[in-house]
C-alpha cells in the first residue's frame, strides 16, 4: 500500500500543477501561456499531421548517431589515456581547455564544415558527448584499485584478459553514470542544434511554431515532448544501474 501511494504521489503533483496552470491562465487577461488543454490539442494536431512521430524520430536519430559515435570513440580513448598516465597527463590541459566551450559555440563552424542539415546537428551532439565521456573514462581508470590490478597480474592474466576481466568491470559502474549524464546533455544539445541547423525535429518544431504564426500551443507541446522523452531516456539508462554485478559501484562501501 505504501509503495502504491509513493507511486501515486508524483502523478498527483503533476495533476495539481496542471490544474493550477489551467486556472491561472483562465483568469488572467494577458496571454502568457497556452492552457494545458490547448497544449494537449497541439500534441493531437501534430499526431494527426504525422509530424509527432516524424519529429521525435528525427531528434532521436540525431542523438543516437552523435551520442553512439562519441561513446564508441571516447570510451576506448579515455580508457587508454587513463591507463597510460603520461599521455593522459600530457593531453589533459588541452581537454580541459576544450571542455568549457559550449557545443553551441561550434554551430557556425559545423555549418561551415557540414552545411545546414543532419550531419551538422549530429556533429554538435558528438562534440557535446565526446569530451565528457573521455574524461569520465579517464577518471574511471584512475580510480581502479591497484590491488585488483595486482591480483589479476598474480593470477597470470594476459593483457587483453586484464582489460576484459578486470579493467572493464571495474570501470563499468562509473561509465554507466557518465553515459547517463552525457545522454542528458546530448538531448539538451539536439534541441538547440535543430533550432538552427535543420528543418525537422523537436527543436525545429519550437522555433518554427513561433515563426509561423505564434503557435505557442505547439511551442509548449514541443517543450513537453522534449521533457517526457528526456525523462524516458534517463529511465532507460538508469535501469542499467540495477544490474547486480554493477551495483557494487554505487554502494557507499
Amino acid at each position, binding site marked *: 500500500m505504501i509503495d502504491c501511494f509513493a507511486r501515486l504521489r508524483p502523478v498527483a503533483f503533476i495533476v495539481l500543477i496542471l490544474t493550477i496552470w489551467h486556472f491561472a491562465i483562465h483568469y488572467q487577461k494577458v496571454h502568457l501561456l497556452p492552457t494545458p488543454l490547448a497544449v494537449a490539442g497541439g500534441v493531437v494536431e501534430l499526431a494527426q499531421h504525422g509530424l509527432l512521430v516524424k519529429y521525435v524520430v528525427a531528434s532521436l536519430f540525431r542523438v543516437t548517431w552523435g551520442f553512439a559515435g562519441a561513446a564508441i570513440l571516447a570510451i576506448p580513448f579515455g580508457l587508454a589515456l587513463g591507463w597510460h598516465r603520461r599521455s593522459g597527463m600530457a593531453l589533459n590541459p588541452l581537454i580541459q581547455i576544450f571542455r568549457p566551450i559550449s557545443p553551441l559555440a561550434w554551430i557556425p563552424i559545423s555549418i561551415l564544415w557540414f552545411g545546414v542539415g543532419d550531419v551538422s546537428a549530429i556533429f554538435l551532439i558528438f562534440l557535446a558527448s565526446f569530451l565528457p565521456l573521455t574524461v569520465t573514462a579517464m577518471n574511471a581508470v584512475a580510480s581502479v584499485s591497484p*590491488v585488483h590490478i*595486482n591480483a589479476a*597480474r*598474480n593470477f597470470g592474466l594476459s593483457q587483453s584478459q586484464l582489460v576484459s576481466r*578486470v579493467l572493464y568491470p571495474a570501470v563499468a559502474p562509473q561509465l554507466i553514470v557518465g553515459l547517463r549524464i552525457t545522454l542528458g546533455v546530448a538531448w539538451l544539445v539536439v534541441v538547440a542544434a535543430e533550432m538552427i541547423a535543420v528543418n525537422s525535429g523537436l527543436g525545429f518544431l519550437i522555433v518554427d511554431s513561433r515563426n509561423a504564426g505564434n503557435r505557442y500551443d505547439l511551442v509548449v507541446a514541443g517543450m513537453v515532448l522534449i521533457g517526457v522523452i528526456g525523462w524516458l531516456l534517463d529511465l532507460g539508462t538508469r535501469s542499467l544501474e540495477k544490474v547486480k554485478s554493477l551495483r557494487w559501484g554505487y554502494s557507499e562501501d
Partner: protein
Amino acid sequence: MGSIIADSTVLKSVVPETVSRKKVLKTKLHAEGISMVFNSDGNRVAVLEAIDLKVGEGEFVCVLGPSGCGKSTLLNIIAGFISPTCGQVRIDGDAVRGPDPRRIFVFQERGVFPWLTVEGNIGFGLFKLSKAERRERIAHYVKLVGLQGFEKAYPQELSGGMKQRLEVARALAVNPDVLFMDEPFGALDSITRLTMRGELLRIWRAERKTIVFVTHDIEESIQLADRVVVMSARPARIQRIVNIDISHPRDISSRRYLELRDGIFEQIGLAHKV
C-alpha cells in the same frame, strides 16, 4: 638501559639462535641480500637493508615488524610485484621475475573483486580449466572456507571475515605452492581475527602450503608461525629469527608461549606493560 642489555642476554638463553629444527626442510624460497631504496622527491629513502631469508617448503613464516618498517615492501619484492634495488629472490632455485600464479598474494579483504559473486571470485584464476573441473574446484574451496550457501552472493553482501575467507579461497583454488599474506586480518575485529587464525591454520594443515605472513601483531605471529622473523625499524633489517617450538594447537597461556612472547616484546624494545 642496563637492564635491557641484561634481559637480552636472558633472551638468548630462552631463544637459542642456533636453531635446532625438528626436521630439515627443503628450501622453497631464498631472498638473497635484498635492499630497497625508494626515490621520493629527490630524497633517497632506504627501506630494506641486506635482507637474507630462507623459507622451507611447507613452512609458515611470519615477518613481524612495526608499521611502516618495510615488511610489506619485502613481501611485494618476494612476490615479484616490485624489483629490489639490490639482491634477488629465488624460488625453487629460479630467480623471481614477476608475479606468478604458483605464488598467490593475499591482500586484505579489499582484494576480492566486487563485481563477481563468491563463485566468480574463487573461479577467477581457473580460466585454464574445463568447466566441469572449475565447478568442482569452486565447490571444494567454498566448502573449505565455509561459504556454503553464499555461492551466488556478491562481496558487498558478506562480512569482513567472510570476504577474507573468500580471498583465501580464491588464492588456494589455483593450487599455488606459496601464499604471501600481507596483514590479511588487519582490518577485522579482534574476535573475527582470532577465528580466522584458527581457520588459516586448519587450511594450512590441510593443504600444506608455504606461507609468508606479514604482521605487526606479536601474538598473531607466535600463534601462527613456525618461525618469526623480527624486523627492525626503517631501514628494516632482520633483527632476529625466533623459532616457535610449540606444537599446534597452541596453548596461549602456556609457559613456553609466554616466554617466547616476552622475548619478542623485549627484542622489539617494548616492555609488556600497558
